């Protein structure tokens, strides 16, 4: 019974964490959907967000919830700078160029961050109480993270569906040339989408810190790049909404397999869980590369 209870508790955590995973992947899918560029340096931007939350909390005592808009703003600025410095020149370049460029940008951000924050693991603890359920206790900070993810996803959704700019972005996703013919300034849409994609990713880094109390490190991003790829492919790669839903699936999968792997004697479940996410990625690519949730 204890195992079942533990499994249920972990699955609940999986759902909560899944919301943040979903949000952390929306930026990746948005950039791929609009610009057809895979941001291989994705995880580095999650890391930047995590450090923003850490610094705001440690230096100024600002609650992570307040750091969300700050991270979004900084992310938009970083995204716009990268777009004008590098991405703009590679819009029509072969895939090889954009893959290598985004990869190098991610590395560069990590190394810059290392100069600023060093390579030690840091963390902070923000405690606002918890609610007790029959199977487990859920800290309010984690629920708040889930709630924020959902609200932000809804805001992005409404922006896409209800505003003129959102409609223009959707038009470019659907047909780049067609949108151009209709008088949409495609380059402007590229810039906005890239900046927004990076902004959302940096923002999600703030929420990630609520789940990794002492896991903030300049190289933490690699893990999130891999997770985001699994989630994005699950959700159909080009669809931010697919990515958001797929985040929940991945959260369940990850925490479920962690519990089950822990039952096998002699193995280290933490490392193996990370291997499982890689294996899942290969399986999805093998079975249904267009994503389980429709998508492209």
């Amino acid at each position: 019974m204890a195992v079942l209870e533990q499994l249920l508790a972990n699955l609940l955590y999986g759902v909560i964490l899944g919301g943040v995973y979903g949000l952390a992947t929306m930026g990746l899918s948005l950039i791929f959907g609009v610009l057809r560029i895979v941001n291989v340096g994705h995880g580095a931007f999650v890391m930047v967000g995590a450090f923003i939350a850490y610094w705001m909390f440690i230096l100024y005592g600002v609650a992570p919830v307040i750091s969300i808009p700050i991270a979004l703003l900084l992310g938009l600025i970083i995204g716009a700078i990268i777009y004008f410095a590098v991405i703009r020149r590679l819009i029509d370049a072969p895939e090889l160029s954009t893959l290598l460029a985004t990869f190098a940008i991610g590395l560069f951000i990590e190394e810059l961050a290392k100069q600023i924050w060093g390579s030690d693991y840091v963390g902070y603890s923000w405690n606002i109480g918890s609610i007790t359920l029959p199977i487990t206790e859920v800290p309010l900070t984690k629920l708040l993270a889930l709630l924020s993810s959902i609200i932000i996803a809804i805001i992005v959704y409404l922006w896409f569906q209800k505003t003129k700019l959102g409609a223009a972005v959707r038009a470019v996703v659907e047909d780049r040339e067609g949108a151009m013919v209709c008088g949409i300034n495609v380059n402007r849409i590229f810039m906005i989408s890239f900046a927004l994609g990076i902004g959302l990713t940096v923002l999600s880094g703030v929420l990630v810190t609520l789940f990794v109390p002492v896991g903030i490190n300049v190289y933490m991003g690699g893990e999130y790049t891999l997770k985001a790829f699994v989630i994005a492919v699950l959700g159909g790669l080009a669809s931010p909404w697919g990515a958001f839903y797929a985040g929940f699936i991945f959260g369940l999968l990850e925490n479920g397999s962690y519990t089950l792997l822990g039952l096998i004697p002699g193995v280290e479940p933490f490392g193996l869980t990370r291997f499982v996410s890689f294996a899942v990625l290969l399986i999805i690519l093998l079975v249904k590369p267009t994503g389980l949730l429709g998508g492209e």
Partner: protein
Amino acid sequence: MANYKPAIPLMIIYAILIAIGFTIPGMWQPIIFVIFYIAIGQALNIFLGLTGYVNFGYVALLGIGAYGMAVALGYYSTAIGIAAILLGFTLAVIFSVILSLAVGGVALRLRGAYFAIATIGVNEGLKHFIEGAKIWGGSEGIVLSGLLRKTFGVEFTNYLSTFVADVILIAIAIFAGLITLYILNNKIGYALIALREDEDAAKVMGINVTKYKMIAFVISSIIAALIGASSWTLKMTYVFPSDVFAINYTVEAIVIVMLGGAGTLLGPIIGGLIYGVLKYYLSVILPGFQLLILAPLLIIIVVAFPEGIVGYIKRKLRRTAIFEYIM
């Protein structure tokens, strides 16, 4: 239209390097250091350069080769003696073929972006698998120096790691160059270049694109695994999962290929030479400079200089007598 003349500059460069290493005292190790970078560039070039696909998990192939050798020496050298080295290279090849068939079989059927996504987790995935499942010594790795000294004697162990491993590396590097030349002059190379330029058009022309991508991937993987087996395990006499799956080597190999000229025969050699020499002398002055300098360098090459040094020279020398010798 086969043109094997570029083998001449290829062999001249290697001959000069080997001559410097043998004749000038103290230069053997620096030369081997440079040849290591040339070799990892050449192995990656066969896949990245010829197909235009990026393998972000490249280091995993070097690492799995290193493990092939470590497993053979660690678990069988007491039983079969010196033949364990042969077994080590065999295991390195077998492991790399299995890994490349598994990853390639899944992801090479798809377009470049999906392949890149599939490969980005290979090295971390393997590292976590070895550490998590605690196979092959788990996170403690395989340390061979004591065992090798006991089995082969101190003198022979030193000879193995300071000379034999280096000679094998040189042989692999030269072999990698020649096989690149062969591919470029062969149906495989024509098919690869056609699909690199336009995969849909190549498919319409009846080229089995997945097959040729797979061939290039497996060849590139085998050479990488052989380099890992000789230059890491045999030379260093230890293997740690956190070392042999470190992403730095992937980045270095990509920079070497792109700097020299992707898809050219001489590109990785020029790129490896420049990179190896710079790194050897700069790492003393600027320790830890690597990624902080490499990352922006790679961005600059990709944005402003995508053809690389050899690609540029080749374009400049068109319709001259030297042109035939550059590939």
